[in-house]
């Protein structure tokens, strides 16, 4: 049986082989030395029909406790915000879904204009001058920023605050080796970064990377952090949550040189960690050091407006070993999801969303306090999540709560010393007050 993904009939094959002038398909592979040929069938399970594939994968999906099946307060970088139906509608349009990088702009005005609109949205949100078309995720854009900082400052050390997402720190460290960069961490004190420690570490650093709100959900003294970095000649780099930027100040307005982060919360499903988009925006002066695609406005030969990939001399396909990055395939479709999401929200919606998260967060803190759970950093204002002590090993608490249908948050013990009994609890607009009540109830049952 001809495979549904192939179009060649037997007679097609015959005609084509005749045109090529070979007797068989095998002959097409005559350049392959016998020794490197497989010479047997691949040892894989038999081909499945679409129906069987569907049933098999639906069964696998059915073994996952996703947020439609379990009441989840997990966050820690990936959030269960509501993704409106229009996002999928647009992303599933074949003309966008099945196109590739718009090397040929006349074929790709749809994607190019969308990226231009995305870049505008990111610049508006972050208060920056230039945004690329996307990076892989919230970790890789931080790596990118290190590369920018290294080359802009000529310095070889990067400071990352301890209150920055541990995965970001880990990934930065992995790649720093290749870049010849040293990574140092600046500790937090009571949930926010110690300014003096930052100041000390920043002295000969290329950059200071911090997160706002930080990994504990606490608001950092971001303007002051940036000031200390700037004073030391290090680039202040803000890792931010786009969803927060209706209520929290734009990094561009408090002195950051670059703003970046994980875009998932804004328009992507959690999807067990990806694909999502990382966003990366900077002040104008860094435009030629930016990694990845950038779309620019131009005109066609008739003088009409159009969009193209621009400043490509930064990129690997032109600059090769001297490129600002090796990235080529990126996360355009997911970034487009972000654009659709922000178009859906609008400035009003974004602010309201931030306020709902703040209110629900306050409610959750209050209910947990009433249930006897102490906030770890009680005095700090937080956004969307907060750390709470559950009085016994948090991983055990998670396991016990899950038996009652609640995933109460992320256990911090693995990433922060002395926090074995701490849960990071995230509350998005999808968590209703009733669900928060249920969290308090279940935690009261399983912890103590």
């Amino acid at each position, binding site marked *: 049986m001809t495979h549904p993904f192939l179009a060649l009939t037997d007679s097609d094959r015959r005609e084509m082989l005749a045109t090529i002038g070979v007797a068989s398909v095998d002959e097409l592979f005559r350049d392959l030395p016998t020794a490197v040929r497989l010479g047997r069938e691949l040892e894989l399970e038999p081909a499945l*029909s679409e129906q069987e594939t569907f049933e098999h994968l639906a069964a696998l999906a059915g073994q996952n406790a996703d947020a439609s099946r379990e009441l989840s307060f997990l966050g820690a970088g990936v959030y269960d915000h509501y993704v409106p139906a229009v996002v999928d509608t647009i992303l599933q349009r074949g003309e966008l879904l099945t196109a590739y990088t718009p090397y040929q702009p006349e074929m790709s005005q749809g994607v190019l204009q969308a990226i231009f609109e995305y870049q505008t949205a990111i610049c508006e949100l972050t208060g920056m*001058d230039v945004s690329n078309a996307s990076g892989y995720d919230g970790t890789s854009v931080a790596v990118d920023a290190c590369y920018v900082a290294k080359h802009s400052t000529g310095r070889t050390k990067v400071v990352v605050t301890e209150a920055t997402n541990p995965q970001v720190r880990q990934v930065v460290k992995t*790649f720093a080796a290749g870049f010849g960069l040293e990574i140092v961490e600046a500790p937090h004190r009571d949930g926010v970064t110690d300014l003096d420690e930052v100041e000390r570490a920043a002295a000969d650093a290329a950059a200071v990377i911090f997160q706002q709100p930080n990994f504990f959900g606490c608001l950092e003294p971001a303007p002051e952090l940036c000031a200390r970095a700037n004073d030391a000649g290090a680039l202040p780099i803000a890792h931010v949550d786009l969803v927060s930027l209706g209520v*929290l100040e734009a990094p561009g307005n408090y002195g950051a040189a670059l703003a970046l982060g994980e875009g998932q919360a804004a328009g992507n499903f959690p999807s067990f960690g990806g694909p999502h988009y990382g966003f990366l925006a900077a002040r104008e002066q860094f435009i030629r050091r930016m990694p990845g*695609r950038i779309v620019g406005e131009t005109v066609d030969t008739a003088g009409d407006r159009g969009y193209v990939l621009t400043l490509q001399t930064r990129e690997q396909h032109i600059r090769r070993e001297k490129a600002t990055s090796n990235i080529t395939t990126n996360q355009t479709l997911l970034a487009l999801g972000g654009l659709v999401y922000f178009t859906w929200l609008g400035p009003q919606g974004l602010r309201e969303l931030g306020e709902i998260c703040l209110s629900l967060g306050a409610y959750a803190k209050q209910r947990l306090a009433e249930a006897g759970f102490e906030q770890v950093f009680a005095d700090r204002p937080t956004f969307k999540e907060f750390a709470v002590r559950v009085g016994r090993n948090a991983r055990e608490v998670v396991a016990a709560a899950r038996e009652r249908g609640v995933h109460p948050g992320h256990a911090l013990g693995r990433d922060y010393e002395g926090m074995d009994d701490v849960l990071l609890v995230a509350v998005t607009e999808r968590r209703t007050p009733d669900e928060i009540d249920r969290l308090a109830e279940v935690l009261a049952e399983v912890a103590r």
Partner: protein
Amino acid sequence: MKLIYEKSQAGRRASALPRYENLPAAPGIPAELRRSEPPRLPEVPEFELVRHFTELSTRNFGVDTGFYPLGSCTMKYNPRINERLAALPGFARMHPLQEEGGAQGALELMWRLQEILAEVTGLDAVSLQPAAGSQGELTGLLLVRAYFAARGEGDQRRKVVIPDTAHGTNPASVTMAGFELTHVQTDARGNIDVDDLRGKVDEQTAALMLTNPSTLGLFDENIEEIERIFHGAGALMYYDGANLNAVCGISRPGDMGFDVVHINLHKTFSQPHGGGGPGGGPIAVRDILEPFLPVPAVVKREDGGFGLDFDRPETIGKVRGFTGPFGVFVRSYAFLRMWGPRLREMSEAAVLNANYVLARLKETYDLPFDRLCMHEFVLSARTMKREHGCTALDVAKRLMDYGFHPPTVYFPLIVPEALMIEPTETEAKETLDAFCDAMIAIAREAAEKPEVLKDAPHRRPVRRLDEVRAAKNQIVKFGFEPAQEPIEA
């Protein structure tokens, strides 16, 4: 066409958000941290949003629109069932920090995908973590680094050999991994020049990075000799898997001698390219490199359950958040299950299609290396340029008028006026014929009325765009100034 910002009107909105009763007021945010000016996001109703992006889509060309023989990109059909599967709540709404016990389906899927990739590449262990091919490259090179460091050869082995046909990501990755580049030439048959190579590989060499078949679409006939040279010098071999679509089930990188491979899931295993991404760049390695793979590893436990193993003391660390782009894995896994051991037919058809188009076009365009090709091939418009002044770019633009996406142009760099054509296995003979007819017609037009090529495209939503001006003016976001009157396209 207007930008969405140009359609915006204060007071409109597409979203309504939930209102919960009786909540405490949103706690105050310290003034210096509070948003001062709202971002100027678009203000449009939901209907306008749908119409705007629908219209944008109609100004774009995907494989669903038509033939897209963009060399090196493997623009094959993206089965629609994959989208349905990736959207299942059990996948889409799964939090990556879900406790192992609540993530067995996701972990099993990843583990099974790893097993399949190991079999297809002929290697021992797989990490799915890298986000795309280039991140796979960088990861692979960091593994090489870690391997030699562990052997005490870290300072000695600083060089990575790359042929002049290599994709730009290869040299860029070499730099980013902190290695130095050694270039090696291509010989008259399109293989690596083994004589050139021999003199360049020694005890300072860490690795070779090779795409095989190469970016010329040619299988390196001396691969066995190359293998002897590198392994003989104690160096490793890295396989850029971008062209794996040529050899699935026929020849495996592991059997060719490669020690590290990245796989572009979005090419070989059919991930819709999304206007530039997402992709997936898993790496497969020989056992000697396994200890260095990124954490966490996805493992099958003794009890038959699946888990994440963070306890890998020699790991290079993490290269991406969580365990990689899971939604991409869902699609590629489904794709692979629908092929199973028949995968060989996929590669055979890809190679047959490419050779057919090559056979039909080689009289009309220059063919730098006159061999059978693999899944793609490179022509040159050199003669056309010399005789009629029309370039590969002009051919590309004119193809648009015939309803085809152009091939990759000006790559690989060693072929002047290169046209790199990759039909993929999913195209019908009729489509290939129509494309060949167009290519031949264009060659005739170049001779008879070259201005039709020079002025192309004529039938797209825009005419040829001025890229130089864009680079000079650097307008990379909407200006919002009332001065900047919307220009109607």
